[in-house]
């Protein structure tokens, strides 16, 4: 019976690891449903971006208050994870505070002291976050796309962190020996008196319970990620690495179109020529009507989105009451991709046409409201590019469906007929000289 704790712990650890690996596999499979795009160039700049923006939180402080609070939670999260290492070793081998004798009371106490301070700061930051969302009701957290699960998800995570941090502090506060040492109990010494009236055995029971709840909480958290916007804590890294490095104004030149245009412009090309033997006979599709027409970086973007709404709160269309919200573009893309993935899971890995596509989530009205101003791209703290998805969907509407608004059709007709978006005569192009 002596080893029952250790065995239980190892089972939980393996279970959590297995479940997590399974989710990661699904995630990678889904992202790979996207089209190819080469983002292997310029690796040194890509590393730099990752270090600066994901690791260094470089874009967070564009909004100083939420940015600084987020950095506290982020740094706290990383530092406290060092403590989780000790917890895992203790759990597997049945030791207690295994690092304490190894490091000596001085260093160990210092480390735990730092963890305690961070745990406390994280607790405060998370409470402020909760107040911003639920009491102050900051506008960007209350847009239409945030109703239901996204709102609950955000709050769940905050409760989770509050509980985890409290458990950590309670665990230390009720460790009678640790308190007696008086090394590193910077915060927990103020909590300890709450429990000091209890017997040592009771305190020990509370300590052990807090320890178990803390680590179980972490296992649950790990496996909750896949179902949550909190996936960003992992995906922010690859996402900033693979993000677009070109000037934001540079849109891709659709390669399928280039092929056809070059053919049309080539005086030697025979327009009636039969396709060569073995040539790709599948007709190229222009633009995107579903997630599988997007490239894999755009799909990675969708999973990375933190639903923070910084994009939406700087979008000129959204600010003036239009339906378009760049955050919703990302959430819809993710939700559709999840649907496609689940469809595949249910059909032995093959997608079974469900008669739906991305336009069942994102309306034309949203797509046409965009000014291509790049504010959303600029604001995104993890370098997501909602505009590129909007552009691909416009391309589909125009080139596959001829479904542009009438005024835009007029504009395009003018460009085609007289080389200007207005109905002026090309021969009058120099009239301004004489006016």
């Amino acid at each position: 019976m002596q080893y029952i704790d250790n065995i239980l712990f190892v089972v939980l650890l393996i279970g959590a690891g297995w479940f997590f690996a399974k989710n990661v596999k699904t995630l990678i499979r889904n992202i790979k449903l996207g089209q190819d795009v080469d983002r292997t160039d310029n690796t040194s700049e890509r590393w730099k971006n990752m270090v600066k923006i994901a690791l260094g939180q470089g874009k967070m402080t564009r909004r100083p208050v939420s940015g600084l609070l987020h950095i506290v939670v982020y740094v706290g999260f990383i530092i406290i994870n060092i403590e989780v290492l000790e917890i895992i070793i203790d759990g597997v081998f049945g030791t207690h505070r295994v690092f304490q004798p190894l490091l000596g009371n001085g260093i160990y106490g210092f480390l735990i002291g730092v963890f305690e301070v961070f745990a406390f700061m994280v607790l405060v930051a998370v409470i402020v976050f909760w107040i911003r969302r639920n009491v102050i009701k900051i506008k960007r957290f209350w847009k239409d796309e945030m109703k239901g699960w996204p709102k609950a998800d955000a709050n769940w995570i905050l409760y989770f962190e509050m509980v985890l941090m409290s458990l950590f502090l309670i665990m230390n506060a009720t460790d009678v020996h640790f308190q007696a040492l008086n090394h590193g109990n910077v915060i927990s010494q103020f909590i300890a008196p709450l429990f000091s009236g209890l017997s040592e055995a009771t305190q020990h029971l509370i300590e052990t319970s807090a320890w178990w709840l803390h680590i179980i909480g972490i296992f649950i958290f790990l496996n909750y990620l896949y179902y949550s916007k909190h996936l960003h804590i992992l995906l922010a890294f690859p996402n900033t690495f693979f993000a677009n490095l070109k000037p934001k104004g540079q849109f891709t030149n659709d390669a399928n179109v280039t092929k056809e245009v070059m053919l049309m412009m080539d005086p030697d090309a025979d327009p009636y020529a039969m396709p060569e033997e073995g040539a790709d006979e599948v007709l190229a599709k222009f633009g995107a009507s579903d997630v599988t027409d997007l490239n894999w970086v755009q799909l990675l973007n969708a999973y990375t989105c933190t639903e923070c709404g910084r994009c939406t709160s700087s979008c000129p269309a959204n600010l003036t009451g239009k339906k378009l919200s760049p955050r919703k573009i990302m959430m819809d893309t993710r939700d559709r991709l999840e649907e496609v993935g689940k469809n595949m899971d249910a059909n032995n890995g093959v997608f079974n046409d469900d008669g739906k596509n991305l336009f069942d989530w994102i309306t034309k009205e949203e797509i046409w409201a965009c000014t291509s101003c790049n504010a959303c791209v600029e604001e995104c703290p993890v370098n997501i590019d909602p505009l590129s998805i909007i552009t691909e969907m416009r391309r589909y509407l125009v080139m596959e469906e001829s479904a542009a608004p009438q005024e835009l059709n007029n504009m395009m007709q003018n460009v085609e007929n007289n080389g200007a978006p207005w109905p002026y005569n090309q021969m009058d192009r120099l009239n301004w000289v004489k006016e």
Partner: protein
Amino acid sequence: MSEQLIVPVMADVVAQGKQPEYLFWVGSAGSFDDRAKKITRAFVKILNKANVDFAVLGIEESSSGDAAKRAGNEFLFQMQAVTNIEVLNAYEVKKIVTCCPHSYNTLKNEYPELGGKYEVFHHTQFIQQLISAGKIKVANNTFKGKKVTFHDPCYLGRANGVYEAPRDLLNFLGVNTTEMKRHKSTSLCCGAGGAQMFKDAEPGDKEINVLRTEDALATQPEIIATGCPFCNTMLTDGVKVKEQEANVQVLDVAELIAASL
């Protein structure tokens, strides 16, 4: 303006066996839009004053394809681009300057892949170089002390990271600039980009150009300066909606410079 402008046309100059150093890409707005034409003329005045060796394509110029591309019509864009590139390459054009951030962006970033590789300048960058090189002198008393605010065009600022050139020009003029709350990378679009210029907005509770004009008016300017013909139209309309046209002018930076030569 009845000033005599010297506007060499590429075909004529090349016929005389000469090769102009710069091509001035006028753009469709700059060629046809009544308000934008004034900006075009102001810029040529500067080019003439600085004795810049340039030419325009004239009737050989065609839409850059920007509006078509942002609207999603990649076919039309690439047809326009390839046609323009043929003309530009035939004239062996190396350097291009334009007053339109949209043309600037597409010529600089999107044409190279299709075979058109040029050094492209926005006119604010170009004028800045002329001043630094001592080719023109700007009198700093015409607008001295005037209250000015600058609106960053999206396709110049965020799209291409050009924030300082237009501001440097305002500094040369000795005006009193106040930044809007949203400026540089946080600037708010005027509402014209992405082909919105050519259509009505989707249902909402406000027009984007009015919101942006309110941003500008909050700095209590006498002049709203910008560097894009579309922004100019949008903000001019915004000022009218706000019934401030008697107090506030919307001017291109090139117009301010041209009036101070």
